[in-house]
């Protein structure tokens, strides 16, 4: 069994460690004894016939237009991968562009790839800071958010994280669904939240008929991630959860 992870247009959407999520997931799988590879996909010609996971990162304001343009010829490929059962793990601007639509900071509306039932609007204020909360399985989750504007989920969609702090951040973050994970927790979100890497890795391995066995490595990264999240929680003054 060889697991293929596509890193979508990392040359444009790879800001601040966000393209590392693909590599983090691959290593998480390899350390459990599974063969895994990462393929950068910026054009349809670079796209393998099928992938198990599609990861996409974030970018700066001037990257939104070029990234949206690069996604147009890839939309059909992404839809084909999804139909075949691929996971999608999206961060920041990448999530925005794989949603239904993005309103840019200039007020232009760009169509999204339609993978996530969410709509982004970049006309609002920028939030920069640490965020802490509990995810949909009530697991402590944290990250540093540096994003402009807001994302609204369509009715009935489930947020990934219920935010405990800070109050200046919306009450929820991200989106979770059938083989979908999206968040505004920036950069290497899977490093600080290896439980999400575990969810994806275990699902992909089991879907292929295998079993995911944790090793010492997985306990060590959880140990360090838990410590990093604890410090974020303490800096934010969260006492419960």
């Amino acid at each position, binding site marked *: 069994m060889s697991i293929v992870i596509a890193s979508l247009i990392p040359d444009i959407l790879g800001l601040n460690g966000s393209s590392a999520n693909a590599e983090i997931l691959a290593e998480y799988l390899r350390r459990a004894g599974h063969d895994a590879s990462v393929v950068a996909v910026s054009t349809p010609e670079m796209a393998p016939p099928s992938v198990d996971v599609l990861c996409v990162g974030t970018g*700066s*304001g001037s990257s939104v237009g070029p990234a949206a343009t690069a996604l147009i010829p890839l939309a059909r490929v992404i839809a084909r991968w999804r139909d075949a059962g691929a996971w999608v793990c999206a961060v920041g601007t990448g999530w925005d562009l794989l949603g239904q639509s993005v309103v840019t900071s200039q007020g232009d509306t760009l169509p999204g790839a339609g993978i996530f039932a969410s709509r982004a609007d970049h006309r609002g204020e920028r939030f920069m800071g640490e965020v802490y909360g509990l995810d949909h399985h009530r697991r402590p989750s944290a990250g540093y958010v540096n994003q402009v504007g807001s994302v609204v989920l369509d009715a009935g969609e489930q947020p990934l994280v219920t935010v405990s702090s800070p109050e200046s951040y919306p009450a929820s973050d991200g989106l979770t669904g059938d083989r979908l994970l999206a968040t505004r927790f920036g950069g290497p979100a899977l490093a600080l939240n290896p439980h999400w890497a575990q969810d994806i890795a275990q699902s992909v391995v089991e879907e292929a008929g295998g079993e995911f066995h944790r090793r010492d490595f997985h306990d*060590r990264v959880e140990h360090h991630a838990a410590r*990093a999240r604890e410090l974020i929680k303490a800096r934010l003054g969260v006492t419960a959860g």
Partner: protein
Amino acid sequence: MRLFLAVSLAKLVRFAARLRGGGSAFPGLVLLRLVPDVLRRSLESLPSGVIFVTGSNGKSTTTAMLVGILRAHGMRVFSNPAGGNLPQGLASALVGGLSLRGVLAADIAVLEVDEAYGTQIAQRITPGWVVFTNIQVDQLNRFGEPEAVFAMLEKLAGYATTGVLVNGSDPNTAALGATLAARGVRVEHMDVSPEATASADHGLLAAPLYFDDIGELPGDPSASVTAVAGPQVDLAVGDATATVAMPHSGLHYAVDAALAVAMASHVAPDFSLPRAADALAHSSPVYGRGEVIHYRGRDISLTMMKNLPSLQANLDAFATPLERVWIAVDDGTPDPSWIFDVDTRAIGSVSIISGSKAAQWALLLEYRGIDYGEVVEDTRAAMGAFVGTADESSGMLHAIVNYEQMMLIRRIAGYKELEGAS
């Protein structure tokens, strides 16, 4: 009389701060409070004017190199210490330079200026020239995105009364220069040959900004980096060429040197490239940029992890993977996410990780499969343990540190002075 009293009081405060150990921006705050226009009164009358040096990376080193070159040409130069690039830092430097009568014995001021405070400082002192080093991915937790830095520098350029010098090898400052030239601003530039750029594994590490076609920089470069081989840098100014033996290796130092040479060629009397090359060869590192400190009989080189391009450029300059490494990072780096973008092949193994962001570094090293000894969050304990892992045959120890940890480590090692303060 008011200036005399203000300078006297600020000097007294400065003396007291130094007795307590270390530099401080407080004397500058006192001086600014008592004489709000002291920067303008002291600096704008200098016969050769004021030069600002700003950008994402290379400000401190370019400033120090330019100061050295101008002094080698007989100019009396006032400057601020590395990192003292906010208004209070500039004023604190001024406290040391002013006579009690408020006179500054200088021909020219070369000031490192924080990119976010550039226009605020320019409202207090009008620069003749502004040097733009580069726009890279830097302090996203502060600026949001590099586009914000572009806008800040564009605004600052409007204050330059003579012109601007841009790094023509950085596509973002080159685009800024082309934009300004189209508006009629005098724009000079330096450049780097493709061969020299190829000397670093990751090239020049520009931020990925996306512009519509803006146009070309006008004219010939004022200086060029034509080749880089380790610490050897070949520079050209017009028809003159020179090979400089720099104190440190790295393409980024070569770029800083060319910026300094290019600027000096426009302001130094009877500019001489050999004289400039000699000054560069004898320049000292600013702190945290290859500085070596001594602690308990061991030498520790300090490499600053300020941001991705800066750390990557420093790592690229090491010829072989580092084996005795201490990584110390604290809350002074609010979001260390970018470390996952660093090519860590220059780090062979890590002895100790410390600081409040140690767990995030430990995660990176785990995913990269790089051995690390232990996590000791307390800096002082980590420093003792780190030197304890080495003996006299260990050679140079390496510390990769953020600014705040660097200052703490220097204090622990007994380095109390604010380096470069006049």
